């Protein structure tokens, strides 16, 4: 199952997108009980594409919480496809696709 959940709804030509990405977002500053650092692991880039066109980009850093929740709007219509993908500092990626309702 994808790590990304998306809800996209159109109203008056504007698509309201809400998304939640499951990710640890470790800052690299936290320590384990034995004093060693927990290695940093966080999402660096988030991209949203609709119909082959990039509609939203975000550059995350360590100040973003665990399991980031994101909401944005773009001009679109019902039935458009929407793909959201992320990339983290370890090079891992994930993406999910949905149809605008």
């Amino acid at each position, binding site marked *: *199952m994808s790590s990304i*959940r998306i809800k996209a709804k159109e109203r008056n030509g504007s698509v309201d997108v809400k998304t*939640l990405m499951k990710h640890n977002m470790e800052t690299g500053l936290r320590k384990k*009980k034995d004093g060693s650092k927990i290695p940093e692991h966080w999402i660096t880039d988030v991209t949203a594409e609709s119909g082959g066109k990039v509609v939203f980009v975000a550059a995350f850093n360590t100040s973003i919480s665990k*399991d980031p929740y994101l909401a944005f709007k773009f001009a679109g219509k019902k039935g458009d496809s929407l793909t959201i993908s992320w990339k983290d500092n370890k090079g891992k990626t994930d993406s999910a696709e949905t149809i605008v309702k």
Partner: protein
Amino acid sequence: MFKYLRFSVVVVALAVSGIVPAGPLGIGSTATPEMIAGWDIDIRPDGVGLPPGQGSVAEGELLYEAKCASCHGLFGEGEGRWPVLAGGEGTLDTLHPEKTVGSYWPYASTLWDYIYRAMPYTAPQSLSNEEVYSIAAYVLYLNDIVEEDFVSNKETFTQVKMPNEENFFIDNRPDVQNGRCFENCADPSTFKIVTTINGVTPTGHFKEDSGVAANHYEGNPSAASGSELRIEKSVTKVALSKEALLGRGVYDKACQTCHNSGIAGAPKLGDVSGWVDRIGQGMDTLNDHAINGYQGADGVMPAKGGNMALSDDDVVNAVAYMVEASR
């Protein structure tokens, strides 16, 4: 005066409603099956009580957004300080455990019960069976426990395996008694706390000269080794064997109904003269009579005290407890 007033109100109410009074007090009426069904809404962990009906994740999503998301969040992340429903896996043993349906809840069937009984917060028990099946399915979907095409009904719900179910278990430690001692009691000043139950016994208030070993102060990881509280006494009254300690819990649940009060000729717990001849017959005879039942001159011992859910070992332990406590 106040009591009199209230009584008269009851009488008037009965007269108006026309219910025939019953019982020795002349009030109330026998509940009809329909009345009982209105209260009998509990769903057990094994799924007993789940009503007919069916729901889907897709229907649940719409209902969830309309009725649940304003507090629990669109993705179960929790708005403000309202309960989080999804996520939190692997956090239960950390400093800030996050208890959610996915990380903590033991059975899908009791999730159904909870939603039906108590949700939505502002209008509990307003959801139909189908709506609860759908919403519960969607909450499970938010936790990645079921797939998007999950059809929820009585059969599928009892088959859902929750991630944290294994961590719930029956605590079979014997009950702890706080009996009072009036003679030959231990002197509290001689108590020495050997170990504490880590995480349960508060140790922060222990002072340095209280006789508690230094490794039981807060924050010392080596305190995790202890799992029981032992008190070394200078005067020992009756030391129960391990079997008897286990049997005490069984006794409290099953045997004490008769053996506490002497119903049906049962020898009472602690009645030394009543037990001495019986103990003289030997433990094997006592155990046999307790497990298989016995008809004696004084009274009757039903097999396992009539509680066939007990194992033979339970009964043997309970007999050991009664014998050791009645010498």
